[in-house]
């Protein structure tokens, strides 16, 4: 299957061995979208690779920026102003809404509901992307974060518009849940399909909603408490780990959106005035050091590992992409399932090929 199969979310190929319609063996083949991101970054100033991080997981440019900024800030110890931290949280949680809402849309699309749920999802996503455009100038390739803060403050009235969008989002979510969560077709297609056991998920290094759907309560926002996440009240949805099927992964994301809205409401209430860019040095030239900065991206743990050698360019630059590592269990989940199920299992992993291949 692939690399241009519409259900593979990009250019991704699966070597599938079949017995009738049952998958006997499956081998993922990727690398079609390889753009040499890590080597490019090693030949570029630290700031120069910030716009390239947008293109890793092109649905969530804000969290990609954040992970990179977090790693670089560890290199030179920059203080991030409070307002910038709040705005970062707001942007990251909006990104999570964007990602989950479009993921669910695509997932249902893979199930065969062509168009309708996806268009509803994209309609809501577009409202958030409008917010991104107003703040950063671009819908998807935001390039908004800087070492020590943000590039610019949000324009006047932006916070009110954001509050408006956030307040209306639950209405859409209610409708969406009514549309999808009890639908018999979805239940019969997703329940018991693509089970991922708790032990396998842990040993394979799965992170994000997929890990939580397999029954592990692990969220870097809670574990690391990076930035100001310790100030917000929110829960981490996870299952009891008995099944870990596609439906669990779908539902964990639906519930996570509710929690994101909770965080967003608190952040929009708590944000104060102030500068948005800290005392970032004009020439970014860190001392030799090794750092690893990670955030809870919507797809899982996104980490940047940087080695500085005292020059304006990183000596080594490595991305830990959640999509690629979550993809490693594809074979185990697909064995013994039908071909049509392999498509939705891939959909429920939530990969973006820009991040898998880099």
């Amino acid at each position: 299957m692939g690399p241009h199969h519409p259900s593979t979310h990009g250019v991704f190929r699966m070597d599938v061995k079949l017995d009738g319609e049952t998958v006997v063996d499956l081998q993922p083949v990727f690398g079609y979208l390889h753009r040499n991101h890590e080597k490019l970054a090693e030949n570029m100033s630290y700031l120069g690779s910030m716009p390239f991080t947008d293109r890793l997981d092109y649905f969530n440019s804000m969290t990609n920026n954040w992970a990179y900024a977090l790693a670089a800030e560890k290199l030179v110890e920059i203080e991030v102003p409070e307002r910038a931290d709040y705005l970062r949280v707001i942007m990251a949680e909006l990104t999570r809404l964007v990602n989950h809402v479009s993921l669910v849309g695509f997932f249902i699309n893979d199930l065969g509901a062509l168009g309708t749920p996806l268009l509803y999802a994209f309609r809501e996503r577009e409202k958030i992307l409008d917010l991104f455009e107003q703040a950063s100038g671009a819908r998807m390739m935001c390039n908004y974060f800087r070492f020590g803060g943000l590039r610019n403050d949000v324009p006047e009235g932006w916070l009110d518009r954001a509050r408006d969008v956030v307040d209306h989002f639950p209405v859409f979510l209610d409708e969406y849940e009514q549309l999808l969560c009890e639908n018999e077709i979805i239940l019969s297609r997703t329940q018991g399909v693509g089970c991922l056991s708790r032990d396998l998920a842990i040993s394979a290094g799965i992170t994000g909603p997929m890990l939580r759907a397999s029954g592990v309560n692990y969220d870097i926002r809670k574990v690391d408490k990076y930035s100001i996440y310790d100030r917000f009240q929110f829960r981490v949805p996870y299952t009891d780990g008995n099944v870990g099927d596609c439906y669990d992964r779908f539902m964990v994301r639906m519930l996570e959106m509710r929690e994101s809205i909770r965080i967003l409401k608190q952040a929009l209430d708590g944000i104060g005035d102030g500068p948005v860019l800290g005392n970032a040095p004009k020439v970014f030239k860190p001392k030799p050091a090794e750092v690893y900065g990670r955030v809870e991206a919507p797809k899982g743990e996104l980490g940047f590992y940087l080695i500085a050698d005292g020059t304006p360019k990183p000596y080594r630059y490595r991305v830990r992409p959640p999509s690629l590592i979550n993809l490693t269990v594809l074979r185990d989940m697909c064995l013994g399932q039908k071909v049509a199920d392999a498509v939705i299992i891939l959909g429920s992993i939530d990969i973006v090929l820009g991040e898998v291949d880099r």
Partner: protein
Amino acid sequence: MSLLGGGIFKGMAVTLRNFVGSYFYKDRLTTNDYSWRPTDKLPQHAGEYPKEEGEQLRDATTVTNYSRNFPMLLHDGSEPMDTIRCVACQICERECPPQCIYIEKSTEKKENAGGKPQFYPAKFDIDVSVCMSCQICVEVCPFDAIVMNSQFELSTPDRFGGLLLRRDDLLKSNDYYHNIHPEEAAARDKRIAEEKAAKEAKKKAAAEAARKKAEEKAKADAEASEGTPDIQEDAE
């Protein structure tokens, strides 16, 4: 679960609500219909979505301030090449992540808007088919010479020459910049004025100090010269 198929009926109700609702609430529209609009009335810049009579649009973006597409070069006065801000320092060329800028420095200096002899770019090409609109060039420019344009109707049948913007295509006046990014341009002009004032104050202070120093030196010299004959006399 009570009734088999109940979930499907519930879902259908949602679809129906959205279908009927889309005629009354623009929040429920999934797409904006521009198809009826003649091509010469399409918006040219981000933020230019003039709503026409009877047109129902989902709230299209109102962004004007930070919208960005491709860079442009600023000049201050009416004659572009006499008042160009760029001094061909080539920082943007070096910092550009996808390396889409090509600059050739002029061989001789020419007076700029401030009346100061400066180099200028003999060639300044931006290949917009490579440019990824990241705005790094704007951030690194120490002369506020390059800023982002928001014009997006750039499609052309010629994919080589048509997408290679030359210096004269890129030159835009500061008024144009104020027109498309009012807040940002005002903030930038304010900052430039402040920096200029600070520079002038510093220059003034330096000149004052230099004058004082010169005066003191002259005094000292005078004293010294007054003293020297004595020394000379002594020497004699």
